[in-house]
């Protein structure tokens, strides 16, 4: 529990920095930090596989992609403008609503919580693989087609005009 609170006090400010900072590069770096903290939380929950995936996929691949996009588009730090602040107000409103909703759901009586109801090796490599290749075989296959389609679509749209 102590570990959780330490992590929470580090993670929440980092997550807020992602959203609030004016400079997109700082936001991206804060996101790396946030994702690592969450990975440590997964380790604390003994979900080692998810922790590894979190580091490899999110903190690794996706973050690199985001940094690439920021640098290729050479995004400037945003200037404050009245339009922005109205949109920001809307954003805060929606965020507050979602917080309330999450709080309401979390404070309710829980039925069978999936994580607690799981078997002892829940989240281990073996159990995830078993799930993936038995229960979720079809989604697993479909995802590969989805990636192919996305690739083809991107090429069709981005190719030089003939």
């Amino acid at each position, binding site marked *: 529990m102590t570990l959780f609170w330490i992590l929470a006090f580090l993670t929440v400010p980092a997550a807020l920095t992602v959203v609030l900072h004016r400079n997109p590069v700082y936001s991206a770096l804060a996101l790396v930090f946030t994702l690592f903290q969450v990975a440590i939380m997964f380790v604390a929950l003994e979900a080692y596989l998810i922790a590894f995936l979190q580091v490899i996929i999110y903190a690794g691949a996706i973050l690199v992609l985001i940094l690439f996009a920021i640098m290729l588009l050479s995004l400037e730090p945003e200037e404050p403008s009245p339009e922005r602040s109205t949109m920001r107000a809307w954003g805060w409103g929606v965020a507050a609503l979602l917080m309330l909703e999450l709080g309401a759901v979390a404070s*309710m009586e829980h039925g069978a*919580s999936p994580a607690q109801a799981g078997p002892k090796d829940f989240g281990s490599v073996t159990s995830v693989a078993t799930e993936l290749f*038995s229960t*979720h075989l079809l989604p697993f296959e479909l995802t590969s087609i989805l990636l192919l389609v996305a690739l083809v*679509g991107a090429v069709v749209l981005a190719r030089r005009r003939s």
Partner: protein
Amino acid sequence: MIDIGFGTAEAWAIAPFTIVTVFAIGILLYETFFPDNDRGVELPFWFSILGLCGAAIASLLAWTDGPAAYGGTFSTDGVAVFTNMVCILAAGLSLMMGVHYMDLIGVKAREFHSLVLFTLAGMMIMGGARDLIVLFLGIEVMSLPAYVLAGIRRQDEKSGEAALKYFLLGAFATSFLLYGIALLYGATGTTAYAGISAALGEAPRIAVLAGIGMLIVALGFKVGVVPFHFWAPDVYQGAPTAVTALMAVGVKAAAVVGTARLLLTGLEGMHAEWSAVLWWLAVATMTLGNVVAIAQNNVKRMPAYSSVAHAGYLFAAIAAGTPRGGGAVLFYLLVYAFMNLGAFAVVIAVGRKDEPNELLSDFAGLGSRRPLLGGAMVLFLLSLMGIPPLAGFVGKLYIIEALVDSQQVWLSVILILNSVVSGYYYLRVIIEMFMRDATAEHPEPEAQPYLMLCVFVALVGTVFLGLFPDLALDAARDSFAALR
């Protein structure tokens, strides 16, 4: 040792999907190894049609009322096979429209064919999905190629705008979908419809309601119901007409069936709640679609709003919440496919190179210039309006019957009133075609054999289903009755 859950039942269940995907990849490979842009589109076109026929046959062979494959998450039951047929029809006729049209508007990309096949593959998954994750992946496999197809005419700004709008709003809808799935999973501990249905009684109610709400929003986006329809008119107008036809019929059909199956099987226990939401959505959609369509002068924008209105009719039938309503949905989708695809084919036939001919006044005098084409358009429009003995009338009749059957009399009254309103703008096109003289010189039209074949097929379907609806109707009803 992991027991991989793949056997004969699984292989059959995804056979139609596999065939379509293999043909789509085959076309891509062919274009890669023989890149000759002047070869014409006939070869990939016929290759695609071969794939579609294969998929249709495989769907019929895979038809089973037995237990669902993949641990109950996917099946080729009657509903799935019927959906497959409607979507294969939509894809086939759209490809047929595209044969000359794509060259005409300057699209050289032969990927058109494989993208249409990939979209179809996604639709087939949505038709048979019995699991929220499978549904989600089906929607994405269907949508990604559709986004690209909307923007395939890259030299045209409108086409690009349509693609971007479609993509951004589609991504927005996906976030709602995932949030809804997460909430339902959190509340029930499973994503399979059967498991959700069993766990609904003890699940925390607020989470379930919020999840259902999010799912309805997301699926409403894909179907294009008010108030989530804002993308529809711009996208339908900006996309190439052959693609618009595919989106207005195929994508909509798959999304409607996905919604109907989710609500009528997985969430049947919450019928009272979602049916009330659907009631209001249906009324708003029908009314707004029809009223705004009256003010349109563009013959692609008008069908866009009309198609929004038709989404309202379909949601009304789902709101009935009975297998009968589900059967009416399936039957109406088939009818809608024929008449709407036919109307879009006529719009393409009237247009020429560099002159989109999309204004209502471009149709002036069509009845005397090209009487056969004009006559076909009249039948499509009368059918869309719901005039007997055409298919559209029978389709609406069964929706109304299903509504009355489940005590939703007011909804059926509103639906009838809306049909009357829709008569105004459909008749306007007919008057333009037959009562007005052509305002501009129209040169002799070129021969467009594929397009005329497409109009002919649609016409036969529209008339035949109006006169002899029994076979298709029974199939539609039985398939939904066998769902539970």
